[in-house]
């Protein structure tokens, strides 16, 4: 009987196939999915790992006897038993048929449809609609097959059921709401029976079928989008700023997102007179003008002098923010995503705010801090529910505009240069909210 170690990231449905098969066969599998044994993205890139598994992907299985195998279906096959593999050549061929069917027919449309609802892929209406039709086509095939059958091959659970169930997991969890799945009752009967077998249950837990079709999760998508940070590190702040400017432009060219989130809808529906700052007297400080100077001219010799010359401390306020949980910051690129995610969620605030937020330090020893300029004397976040997601993760301190501290912070943060004595960690990279 097979015994060994399965490397994977946590909750990987591909790894589930091997784990469920092992429940049936009794194979002893140790799962390494979290540090210190396994860190996805690191462990599987080490030379040691690549020597055993040249593709560098997970799940990957290493037997107690040193036998190594990658690709989830192969691992499931290895840890299975004769019953699961198919007892005759014909049955084994049919098992292989459905395992391949899961990969080639179910997965592509399932991914296209489900990933945007999880916020891990951009939503494309045409692609999603096409994927829905493809999923229907697959379900029709399965439904006809299962009308006269309890399981896909023979009268017992095989790798065919395990592979096809696992490839349908996300569909049944996220989008196959009762009305949609109603015509495919035979598929649902079979699916529910499978996921409720003790062997499946011990791997999957209690599985709940989708009640309402999930839609594109734009917020999460924005949060999880990695920006290509690594190449920028070597560049000077000035160059980075330029890059950012380009990105801004690109974003504008792309036009508005198809789906406005709730907050945006509210703001869009509101007449102009309901400007949240309407009650404030007109200010002499023109934010747009400052941003133009900051973006296009030298910061030290033009933008900073312009800022202090025109800043209106009655109509605007300057704040210092520091991330409250620096211990949770590990990889610097992830921290950067945290910052850009926050900026994206605050999109509607751009007209009336400006910020320079920087990441200091290195991997596992970093801190996020920033200097923010807001209209009025209060923090803007309470004006809209969507803006409140991040601000509670920061401590906010209003700066005395006339103080030396404020002048220094503004200078250092706007320039991305200086001692940053308040932090005690060297500048790593910065982001401008404008």
């Amino acid at each position, binding site marked *: 009987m097979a015994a060994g170690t399965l490397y994977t990231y946590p909750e990987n449905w591909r790894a589930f196939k091997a784990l469920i098969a092992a429940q049936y066969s009794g194979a002893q599998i140790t799962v390494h999915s979290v540090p210190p044994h396994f860190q996805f993205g690191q462990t599987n890139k080490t030379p040691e790992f690549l020597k055993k598994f040249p593709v560098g992907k997970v799940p990957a299985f290493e037997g107690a006897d040193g036998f190594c195998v990658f690709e989830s279906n192969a691992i499931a096959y290895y840890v299975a038993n004769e019953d699961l593999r198919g007892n005759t050549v014909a049955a084994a061929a049919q098992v292989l048929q459905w395992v391949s069917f899961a990969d080639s027919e179910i997965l592509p449309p399932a991914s296209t449809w489900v990933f945007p609802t999880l916020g891990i892929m951009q939503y494309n209406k045409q692609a999603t609609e096409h994927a829905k039709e493809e999923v229907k086509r697959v379900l029709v095939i399965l439904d006809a097959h299962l*009308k*006269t*059958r*309890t*399981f896909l091959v*023979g*009268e017992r659970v095989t790798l065919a059921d395990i592979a096809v169930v696992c490839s349908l997991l996300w569909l049944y969890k996220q989008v196959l709401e009762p009305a949609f799945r109603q015509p495919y*009752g035979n598929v*649902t*009967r*079979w699916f*529910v*029976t499978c996921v*409720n*077998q*003790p062997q499946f249950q011990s791997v999957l837990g209690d599985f709940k079928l989708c009640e309402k079709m999930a839609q594109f999760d734009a917020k999460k998508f924005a949060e999880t989008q990695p920006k290509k940070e690594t190449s920028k590190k070597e560049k000077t702040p000035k160059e980075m700023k330029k890059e950012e400017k380009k990105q801004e432009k690109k974003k504008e060219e792309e036009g508005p997102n198809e789906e406005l989130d709730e907050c945006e809808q509210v703001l869009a529906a509101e007449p102009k007179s309901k400007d949240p700052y309407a009650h404030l007297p007109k200010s002499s400080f023109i934010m747009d003008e400052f941003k133009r100077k900051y973006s296009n001219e030298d910061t030290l010799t033009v933008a900073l002098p312009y800022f202090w010359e025109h800043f209106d401390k009655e109509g605007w306020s300057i704040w210092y923010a520091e991330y409250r949980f620096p211990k949770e910051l590990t990889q610097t690129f992830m921290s950067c995503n945290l910052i850009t995610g926050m900026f994206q969620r605050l999109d509607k605030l751009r007209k009336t705010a400006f910020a320079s937020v920087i990441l200091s330090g290195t991997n596992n020893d970093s801190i996020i801090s920033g200097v923010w300029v807001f209209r009025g004397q209060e923090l803007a976040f309470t004006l809209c529910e969507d803006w409140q997601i991040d601000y509670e993760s920061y401590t906010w301190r209003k700066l005395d505009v006339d103080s030396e501290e404020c002048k220094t912070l503004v200078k250092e943060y706007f320039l991305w240069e200086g001692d940053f004595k308040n932090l005690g960690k060297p500048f790593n990279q910065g982001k401008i909210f404008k």
Partner: protein
Amino acid sequence: MAVAVLTELSALENTLGLPRSNKFSALAGERPVPVLQTNDGPRLVGLATIASHLVKQARKEQLLGASSEERAAVQQWLEYRVTRIDGRPSREEADGVLRELSAYLQDRVYLAGNRLTLADILAYHGLHPLMVALPVHEKERYVNVSRWFSHVQQYPGVKQHLPAIVFLKNRLYARGP
């Protein structure tokens, strides 16, 4: 010929892996009722009662249902077996049973819960004479019963002495209900 219900209880003992140590007898009558005299307790009367007792004797309580709802459902189908399936049902009554079961099994693999229980085993034994006589197009008409029956008869240990019944997985007739 031995009384069918006693043969069934012996088969159940085999299915459960019990040694043949129980002595069954039958109360005579229009429909024979099985009786089991236990060593240390009262006389047990009736198929459902004795079958449940055998399951406990074999320490296979999961066959009586995993949750309280499932246990209730198992008992419900044991009662159904005795009241609706047994006792030479007429043609119309048999059709009624198959119709009911086929509707019930449309979104279920097993009669109670998601695993084989005693309800499936006894219903299988009870329906066997009926299914043997069923023509192909009728098997197709009650497709959910056929699928369930085909699955249960191939479940290890369930079939025992009963002959396997053939079910076609591909449908011959255009459209059943």
